[in-house]
């Protein structure tokens, strides 16, 4: 068979996309590039800053090494405070998030009004960042770890509550119905029928959030809410870079350890 004969029998053209599909694909590409370009343009970024950025960065690095190791003695206190803030904040979360989760799950909420309230609390808590909560609580409690603890709790309630509420909505109806059928009160149904079923999720979520909170509490000090962040911020503002590097290494360490702890615990319980 010559090539012409072959081509007559079996087509020589094949297109993966129809012209329309190709057009749509390119339209998406161009659209995305346009959005990025427009955003950058409107931000009026002073591009000439990039000219000496590498010098600035190199300068920073040379100032950061060698780390001023003796400084470690000064930051042990704030580091422990950071861990406390995360832990105590998470502890408060446990007590507040549970009832809110129960009123935010469709199958355990008493009525539509409580459901709405629950959802509202969850959404508000989640859409305000921990650091922003920090601003608010510093205004309330004054600077210090107290504000940090409450900021952590305020943000975590939404996170933990939402995940627990979702898992409550997924539990097995049969078990709770069987307990209701014995004439148990609402609280008894919760305690015996619901909580045991979602317990693993509760523990898992809380440990997971604790690990996130360690990371969050390292920066709460930037707004005065306690922890290592206060010293980090002041060292940066005083250009004491060799102290900054010690703190960064310490932060890296505790975040890494908390991630390890949280991963191990979660593996154990599930």
């Amino acid at each position, binding site marked *: 068979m010559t090539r012409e004969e072959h081509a007559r029998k079996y*087509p020589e053209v*094949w297109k*993966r996309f129809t012209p329309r599909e190709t057009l749509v694909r390119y339209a998406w590409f161009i659209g995305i590039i346009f959005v990025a370009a427009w955003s950058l343009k409107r931000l009026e970024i002073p591009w000439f800053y990039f000219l000496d950025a590498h010098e600035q960065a190199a300068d920073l690095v040379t100032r950061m090494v060698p780390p001023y190791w003796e400084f470690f003695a000064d930051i042990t206190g704030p580091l422990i405070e950071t861990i406390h803030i995360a832990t105590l904040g998470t502890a408060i979360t446990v007590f507040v998030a549970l009832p809110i989760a129960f009123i935010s799950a469709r199958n355990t909420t008493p009525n539509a009004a409580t459901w709405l309230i629950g959802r509202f609390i969850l959404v508000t808590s989640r859409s305000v960042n921990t650091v922003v909560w920090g601003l608010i609580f510093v205004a309330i409690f004054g600077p210090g770890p107290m504000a940090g603890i409450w900021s952590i709790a305020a943000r975590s309630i939404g996170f933990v509550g939402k995940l627990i509420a979702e898992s409550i909505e997924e539990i097995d109806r049969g078990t709770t119905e069987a307990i209701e059928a014995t004439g148990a009160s609402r609280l008894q149904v919760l305690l015996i029928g619901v909580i045991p079923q979602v317990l693993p999720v509760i523990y898992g979520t809380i440990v997971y959030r604790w690990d996130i909170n360690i990371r969050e509490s390292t920066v709460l000090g930037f707004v005065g809410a306690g922890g290592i962040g206060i010293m980090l911020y002041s060292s940066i503002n005083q250009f004491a870079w060799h102290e900054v590097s010690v703190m960064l290494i310490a932060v890296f360490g505790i975040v890494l350890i908390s991630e390890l702890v949280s991963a191990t615990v979660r593996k154990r319980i599930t």
Partner: protein
Amino acid sequence: MLSITDLVKVYPSGEQALGGVNLQIDQPQVVAVIGSSGAGKSTLIRCINRLVEPTSGRVTLNETDVTALSRRALRRARRRMGMIFQEYNLVERLTVMENVLSGRLGYVSFWQAYRRKYPPQDISRAFELLKRVGLDGYHNTRADALSGGQRQRVGIARALMQQPDLLLVDEPTASLDPKTARQIMRLLCELAHEQGTPAVVNIHDVNLAQGFADRIVGLAGGVIAFDGAADELTPAVLSDIYGEEDWSKTIQNPVADRSGGKDRGTLERESAAG
């Protein structure tokens, strides 16, 4: 054509999978490799195109010493070896046509490959192969929408798209039902004969091997325990390969099914079904 000398493979774990294999294929024939699990069948095939790096020994394909090639030259040599897998290994989210055309990846530029712009004769040949394997009209179907038998047909078309000098086939039918398995095996052997391509086919089903292959190699513990024509298989030979067992029921009457491998009419009918 293909010549394997003293091929040894010791895995980093210390496991010796091949202990000095010698194999010559001098004519376009289908060679079935049988042997129990762990005998080294897959390792043998993968050492030929160096998906597994042999420990020592030589593999020569048409005067090219595959074992001595640089990475770049190895890629060139791999273009000449089509490979077919038990799990089909199609790229699930690509269409049938893209999967078949991926057999030509070695011959087109990156940009052409990206734009799916293959030379007209490649596309024409892909359509021909799809028809030949019984998948006429399926070219724009996504691979994850196909049945196992259909996927293996695409796998065969992809390998043949390479216009290979050698087909390496690793248990092509192990994931298929018995009927589809026979159809696929028949298709494979026919195509190998049609294109004059020698094929090394790993297979667990002694019956299928006997029914369709021209030659059978038995591997046991990483060495060749048998090498001969399909009808030379006897219970004694099978005991050598697999160990003691009552093999008399497994050996089939050689005359009854040998013709099946070369019968074209049945293929056209059956292939549409799989």
